C-alpha cells in the first residue's frame, strides 16, 4: 500500500477504512487523503447528528467518532505500521461550536511511533479553516512494525 497525501489515495484504502466500517458508512465519512502518517476524513452535515436542537450544532460525540477514525487512519498511513490499530486513549478539546449546516473535516497526523504505541494529534475544521472546531491527541496500539520478525516484538 504505497500512497501519498498529495496525489490522493488508493481506493482500496477507502474500502478498507470506510466502506467496511458500518459506523463510518452510517456517518457518510469520506476519506480525502491518506499516506505518510497523515489522514484527512470528511463528515458531511446531517440533521440526525445534531446534538442541540435549539442551535442545530453537531453533537460532540459525532466529532469524537470522526477524530477517532481519522486518528486510527493516520496510524495505518504511517510507513512503519502494518495492519489495523486500536485506540488506547483519546482526548478532545472542543474549541467552539461547529457552524450549523456545515460538514466537518478531520486532519490527523501520526507524529511518533514506538514498537507498541503510536502517538497522534488531530484537528477538526468546518468551512472556516482558520478557526478549528476541536483538537485531539490520542494514543493507538501498534500491531506490528514493518520489518519486525513476528517473534521479535517485545
Amino acid at each position, binding site marked *: 500500500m504505497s500512497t501519498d497525501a498529495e496525489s490522493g489515495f488508493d481506493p482500496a484504502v477507502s474500502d478498507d477504512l470506510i466502506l467496511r*466500517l458500518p459506523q463510518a458508512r*452510517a456517518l457518510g465519512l469520506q476519506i480525502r487523503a491518506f499516506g505518510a502518517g497523515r489522514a484527512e476524513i470528511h463528515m458531511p452535515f446531517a440533521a440526525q447528528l*445534531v446534538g442541540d436542537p435549539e442551535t442545530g450544532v453537531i453533537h*460532540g*460525540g459525532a466529532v469524537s467518532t470522526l477524530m477517532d477514525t481519522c486518528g486510527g487512519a493516520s496510524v495505518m498511513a504511517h510507513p512503519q505500521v502494518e495492519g489495523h490499530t486500536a485506540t488506547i*486513549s483519546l482526548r*478532545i478539546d*472542543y474549541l467552539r461550536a461547529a457552524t450549523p449546516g456545515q460538514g466537518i473535516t478531520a486532519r490527523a497526523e501520526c507524529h511518533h511511533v514506538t514498537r507498541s504505541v503510536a502517538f497522534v494529534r488531530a484537528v477538526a475544521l468546518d468551512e472556516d479553516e482558520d478557526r478549528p472546531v476541536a483538537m485531539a491527541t490520542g494514543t493507538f496500539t501498534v500491531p506490528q512494525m514493518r520489518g519486525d520478525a513476528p517473534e521479535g516484538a517485545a
Partner: protein
Amino acid sequence: MSHRKPEPVQVVKQRRDTALRALAEGVPYVNFLGITFDRRGDELTGVLNYDDKLIGNPDLPALHGGVTAAFLEVTSIITLSWMSLWDEVESGRLDLGSLEKGQLPRLPKTIDFTIDYLRPGLPRDAYARARVTRSGRRYASVHAEAWQDNRDRPIVQAVGHFLMPWDER
C-alpha cells in the same frame, strides 16, 4: 411540623419520566445512536441499544470506539442536565408541557472529554452511568463508564469538563 400527604406514585413517576423522555428524545444524535435511559429515582443508566451500524471493526466484530465515546458523552450530558433539572421537575417549576413540545432546557457544553479504551465493545447492548464529581456555577466535572456483561469489567471510561448553560459569558 406539618406532614403533607405523599403524592400518588403514578403522579411522581409520570412527572419524572416525562421530563427524562423529553430531555433525551429531543436530541437527534441520541436517537441516531439508539441511546435510551433507565431511571431509578434520580439515578440514570444509559442504554446503547445494539444495532449493526454501531460496529467499527467488522472483523472482530467490535463497537466503533467513537460510538462508545459518544455514548459516554451523551450519558454525561443527559445526567448533568437531569441532576440540575431535578429540583425544578420536583417543585413543579419546570413546565412539562413545553418540555414535551420540544422546548428543551439549554444543555451543558463539552469543554473537553478524555476517553480511556479498556476492552473491545462486543456486538450487544452496553450500559453507562455518569457521576457528577463536581458541579459548580460555571464548570462541572464528570466521570463516566460503560460496561456490557459485567459491571466490574468496564469497556470504556472517560472524564470530561462541561460548561453549564446558565453562565456562558
